[in-house]
């Protein structure tokens, strides 16, 4: 793979709340190369969305705090960037698509006005150029009769169409990097299939890199080249999609894959992960997964496991591997 576009290096993000300190992201490192599609998977509260938002510097500080680590885009630490550079990064290089288009888009402006605004601000277009380009973009993402939909408001679109509008807006600045945060979670499965197809085709067509946040292992299995699995603020496993699915090495990843009911055969009982996610305000010492882990050892309760390369390019943070 070519040179990394995005590098997240030992990133720790804390939220200082009244009730105490919550570590949402703890020592996460990953890198995404040019043209790579990376899926960050985990359950609610695992820190995947916070990680993604930190790339756009969308973590509210306070209460949030980048306690340590760096996020580099094309080699440049984004937390050292000036406001002007940051604006340029958000406007021209990195774009983001959110889960809820209804709350991410402005309900009181027409779709044409919103996308046009982005084009005029970021691309320096005049009104007529912006309008023309907006129609092209809407067409590109498969909105029927785009010319007449310019004057529609967000509520006049269906869920799937709204997500297309958001994608059109994201693409408006010719980004090289797309962050998609659960873009299909609110959608029905048939609509999800079309949006996933659309995102894949856009990635290919515009040679973008993708950071895809989802809780759905089925979605990453088809939308991404590599995946990272997060559990309770830690990245626990990282590798190519084929490796991780065929040969999962962290007990949490194994547990997740076993929890999913299968479509091809009916099993009487599933194999869930026992217990519940730890309280993030008061996490257990050592590996955060140890209270739920069937293979937990004494060391798991004391020490946070280091990364171990279990196969070329395939990493897991688990004491089971550091023992061998």
């Amino acid at each position, binding site marked *: 793979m070519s040179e990394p576009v995005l590098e997240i290096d030992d990133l720790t993000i804390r939220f200082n709340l009244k009730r105490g300190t919550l570590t949402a992201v703890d020592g996460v490192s990953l890198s995404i190369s040019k043209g790579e599609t990376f899926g960050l998977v985990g359950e609610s509260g695992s820190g995947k969305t916070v990680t993604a938002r930190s790339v756009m510097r969308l973590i509210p500080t306070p209460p949030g705090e980048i306690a340590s680590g760096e996020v580099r885009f094309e080699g440049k630490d984004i937390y050292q960037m000036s406001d002007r550079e940051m604006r340029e990064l958000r406007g021209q290089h990195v774009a983001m698509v959110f889960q809820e288009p209804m709350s991410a888009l402005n309900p009181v402006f027409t779709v044409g006005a919103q996308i046009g605004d982005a084009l005029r601000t970021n691309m320096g277009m005049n009104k007529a150029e912006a309008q023309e380009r907006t129609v092209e973009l809407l067409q590109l993402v498969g909105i029927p009769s785009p010319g007449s939909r310019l004057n529609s408001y967000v509520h006049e679109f269906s869920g799937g169409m709204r997500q297309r509008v958001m994608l059109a807006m994201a693409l408006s600045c010719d980004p090289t990097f797309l962050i998609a945060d659960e873009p299909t979670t609110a959608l*029905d*499965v048939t609509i999800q299939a079309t949006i996933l197809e659309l995102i894949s085709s856009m990635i290919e067509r515009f040679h973008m890199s993708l950071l895809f946040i989802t809780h759905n292992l089925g979605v990453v299995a088809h939308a991404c080249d590599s995946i990272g699995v997060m559990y309770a603020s830690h990245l626990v496993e990282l590798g190519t999609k084929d490796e991780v699915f065929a040969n999962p090495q962290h007990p949490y990843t194994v547990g997740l894959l076993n929890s999913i009911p299968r479509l091809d055969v009916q099993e009487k009982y599933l194999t869930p992960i026992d217990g519940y996610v730890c309280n993030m305000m008061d996490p257990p010492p050592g590996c955060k997964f140890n209270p739920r882990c069937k293979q937990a050892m004494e060391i798991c309760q004391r020490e946070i496991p280091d990364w171990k390369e279990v196969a070329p390019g395939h990493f897991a943070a688990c004491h089971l591997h550091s023992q061998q």
Partner: protein
Amino acid sequence: MSDAAMSQAETAPTAAEENLLDVRNLTKYFDLHGDLVSRLAGKHQLLKAVDDISFYIRKGETLGLVGESGCGKSTTGRLITRLIEPTSGEIDLHGEDLLSFSAQRMRETRKDIQLVFQDPYASLNPRKTIMHILSRPLDVHGLATNWHDKRERVLELLNLVGMGSEHIDRYPHEFSGGQRQRLAIARALSVNPELVIGDEPVSALDVSIQAQILNLFRELQEKFGLTYLFIAHDLSVIRHISDRVAVMYVGKIVEEGPVDVIFSEPLHPYTNALLAAVPEADPKKPPPRLTLSGEVATPIDPPPGCRLAGRCPLAKPVCAEVDPDLRGIDGDHRVACHVV
């Protein structure tokens, strides 16, 4: 009753095995009233949420009701409990039509049909303790007379759903989503129901917790011989939990049959489309794709004919004109399609 409705009712098997629930030609139209001008002109817009569906559930089995948002699956669940009143149709429990029951009789019958909702954050009263929440149905149905009995029963219920007795005096906010859903299930079971309707009971849960709750549903079914109507949009969940499956699209049941048949030999183009769109958690499986064109049809004043006609790759002229009946293929397998 229309001809279509007649033939649909006839294909539903009569009580060869004991059917706990028999739903016949169940219909719910919502009148949208519309603006003043159209009202004055006497025009009514009807949202046909559930449009003449018939199905049955045998005692002790699980019927999975699957479909996308707005297809009428939740409305169906609510109609069966008479949380909303149907426009027409028949809902037989043990052969007696619920719709003919008096308010008093219906109240008594409600303990036989219990609901578990999707959002355990909304379905448990935040101001009440678990003791209160789980013993309230006992009060309502006069099933426990003194405090001591109630407490015993609540402890038993907690144990049943895998929660410790230390939780009894806590409040809902002290529990995670998965634990709350266990509590909601315990409440449903408190009155020893025969039929439990789960309306997307695992959709709000993370996958590792979802598996726990699905196992719990299965354990309880084995233990008490419960009958389930399991409503969900997730096909792999439906595949896992159901004995038989009914697929709904815009107010209609388009296909119904034993779970293995529906998932391995689906006939209806919509069932096929749903299955092809599921992204399986295995990179070696084919990627999800959509085999239909366009968007979901609207249930508001739907055109005549098959609701899928405008999107279906197999559509013939007849599909846009005549609404297909749900007809038997073999055994329990029924499909509503002119083409297949």
